[in-house]
């Protein structure tokens, strides 16, 4: 058995169903061996999207997404996707071909030091120098990617190693890593302290981050807050861990969040951050927000605790396990007044939008769309103004909301939606992007057609890089620089070229009917919504 055949056996052992990628000579032994397996391969149209598609799949399945590309430019093209998964803590195992191991370092054709290049964006990387190491390396990679704080792991495979004979294949039962033992269970004393502080608190608030989803603790969170009646806000990555219309959920915080959610953060006397990094976009000036607040910070990554805000009670561990431990206690507290106050803020604080009726109002449109989407539908938001509108106006029922809140990589939504759709073919998957982000991943319409991936795509078209234009409007006194998207293709023709159904919405008149048409049936469809170029989030 060759190294490449062993690799495929390892993927089978890890129950990998799909590999996204782009071959080149240096990864050909891998792609040759995979022909003899039931694992599906998807020829993505640019490597970055292989990582995004794997990310979309990982977020649906809870298992690492897998991609495989060639050496040199193939590997370097993958980097943005890897960095995105790293920032968003999404588990990936990425294979890159590499030149013959004896030639490494001599700058031969399509050679790049990929393990060196991705060092600060991966949890770990391997350059395999002996094919016999492959089973151990792959076993470790899947373990590292999907435990602790999840993230991407890269395995660099010189072509001669893929062709090397390894003899008998055996897959290790367990990993032995003396340097890697992530904490799962939270410290019992700290948990007791949390209970005590909660009993003292008058205005407690839970801020839920993406870690809730990653540790599969959505149910635990819901049980806890319903039992103790504690209000919840979320970060961008935490959207969807609570149904939007849950009476104890008060929406997204941050500089693009809801004013009442931010006010709740300011006025709370106890904040429990769970699986959230206290990053700048969620909590601006944490020292000020947290000054007189008891901050309980629960995270699986000890380095996140105290990085951006000093925690009163730090707890390292898995959110699910810790929430279960907290729920063991009876908590004596009545927070109804606080909840009522927050409800008053929610109804009284104004949200100023004066949509021009000549265009589609993204807020009303997204709300209407999400209410019409299936109960368990998957909504993937891209990056830009479309992301903020999606975060604010998409109503999550029992489905999923996915976006790259950490890295903010334009072009994420279409490939991620493809990965999600392949992971859950029975679910409705909608990608919502702007005309800028759409053009960053437009080439994947071919992949969708080739493999029959029925993703529905909405393009909010304003002929601008809207988020940057908005910044230039506010901060640079309307000196617009390099944000004009004139020259964009006619999307109706694009849809026709890729054999997709096309719908255009010019304004809100009849938009509902068009949304029904867009969502009908399980077929891919491209919908263009003309929005006000001057609209602001």
């Amino acid at each position: 058995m060759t190294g490449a055949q062993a690799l495929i056996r390892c993927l089978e052992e890890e129950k990998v169903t799909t590999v996204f990628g782009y071959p080149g000579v240096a990864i050909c032994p891998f792609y040759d061996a995979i022909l003899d397996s039931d694992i599906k391969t998807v020829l993505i149209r640019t490597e970055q999207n292989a990582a995004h598609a794997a990310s979309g799949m990982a977020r649906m399945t809870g298992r690492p997404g897998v991609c495989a590309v060639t050496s040199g430019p193939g590997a370097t093209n993958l980097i943005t996707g890897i960095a995105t998964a790293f920032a968003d803590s999404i588990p990936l195992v990425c294979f890159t071909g590499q030149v013959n191991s004896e030639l490494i370092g001599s700058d031969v054709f399509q050679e790049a030091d990929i393990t060196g290049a991705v060092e600060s964006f991966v949890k770990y990387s391997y350059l395999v120098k002996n094919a016999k190491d492959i089973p151990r390396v792959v076993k470790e990679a899947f373990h590292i990617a999907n435990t602790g704080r999840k993230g991407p792991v890269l395995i660099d495979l010189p072509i001669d190693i893929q062709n090397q004979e390894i003899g008998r294949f055996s897959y290790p039962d367990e990993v032995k890593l003396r340097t890697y033992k992530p904490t799962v269970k939270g410290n019992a004393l700290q948990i007791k302290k949390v209970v005590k502080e909660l009993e003292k608190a008058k205005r407690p608030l839970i801020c839920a981050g993406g870690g809730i989803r990653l540790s599969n603790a959505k149910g635990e969170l819901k049980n806890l807050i319903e039992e103790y009646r504690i209000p919840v806000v979320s970060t961008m990555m935490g959207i969807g861990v609570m149904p939007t219309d849950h009476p104890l959920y008060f929406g997204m915080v941050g500089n693009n969040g809801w004013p009442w959610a931010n006010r709740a953060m300011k006025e709370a006397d106890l904040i429990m951050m769970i699986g959230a990094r206290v990053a700048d976009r969620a909590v601006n000036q944490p020292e000020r927000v947290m000054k007189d607040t008891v901050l309980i910070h629960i995270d699986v990554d000890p380095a996140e605790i105290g990085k951006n805000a000093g925690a009163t009670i730090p707890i390292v561990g898995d959110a699910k396990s810790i929430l279960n431990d907290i729920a063991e206690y009876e908590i004596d507290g009545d927070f109804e007044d606080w909840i009522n106050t927050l409800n008053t803020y929610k109804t009284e604080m104004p949200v100023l939008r004066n949509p021009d009726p000549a265009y589609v109002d993204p807020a009303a449109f997204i709300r209407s769309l999400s209410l019409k989407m299936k109960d368990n539908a998957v909504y993937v938001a891209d990056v830009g103004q479309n992301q903020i509108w999606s975060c604010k106006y998409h109503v999550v029922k029992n489905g999923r909301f996915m976006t790259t809140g950490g890295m903010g990589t334009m072009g994420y939504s279409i490939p991620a939606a493809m990965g999600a759709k392949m992971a859950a073919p029975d679910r409705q998957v909608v990608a919502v992007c702007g005309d800028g982000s759409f053009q960053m991943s437009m080439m994947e319409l071919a992949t969708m057609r080739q493999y029959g991936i029925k993703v529905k795509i909405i393009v909010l078209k304003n002929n601008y890089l809207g988020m940057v234009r908005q910044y230039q409007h506010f901060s640079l006194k309307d000196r617009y620089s390099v944000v004009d998207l004139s020259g964009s293709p006619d999307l109706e023709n694009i849809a026709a070229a890729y054999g997709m159904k096309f719908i255009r919405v010019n304004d809100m008149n009849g938009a509902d009917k068009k949304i029904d048409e867009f969502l009908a049936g399980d077929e891919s469809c491209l919908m263009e919504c003309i929005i006000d170029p001057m609209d602001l989030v």
Partner: protein
Amino acid sequence: MKRIFSVLVENRSGVLCKVAGLFSRRSFNIDSLAVGETDDNAVSMMTILSSGTEQTLEQIEKQLNKKLDVIKVKTFDESKAVTRELMLIKVKYNKGNRREIMETCEVMKAEIVDMSEKMMILQICDTPEKIRLMISMLSQVSIVEVARTGTLALQKCMED
């Protein structure tokens, strides 16, 4: 604030780069760095002297611990450690200052380890503070080259 990080790492290629990269990537200071094998040849010890705020120093420790090639991180203040640095220093001398240089060596417990008609190499092994002092003492004569190992440190035996 200064702190010493004693970092046990897997003795593999690329590990030094990963640790050094972590410091540059997150704008942490490296005041000094010394690396060598331990009694176990699969394990290397990196002794890193760094400075920063208490929060930064805490982050350094946590980020080091996140690296999968890092086996163990110990941190301590200089006062809690035995520290040594080895320096080789090449100086030009003449009849006028030869005596003075030799006296300095005697006071500083340095040795002359090589010599020609015009130049000599001095060796000193002492605390970083004494090394700095030695350099300043010799700044009067013309220093040709200096090579330093960086600070090595072990936590003092007395534990409280």
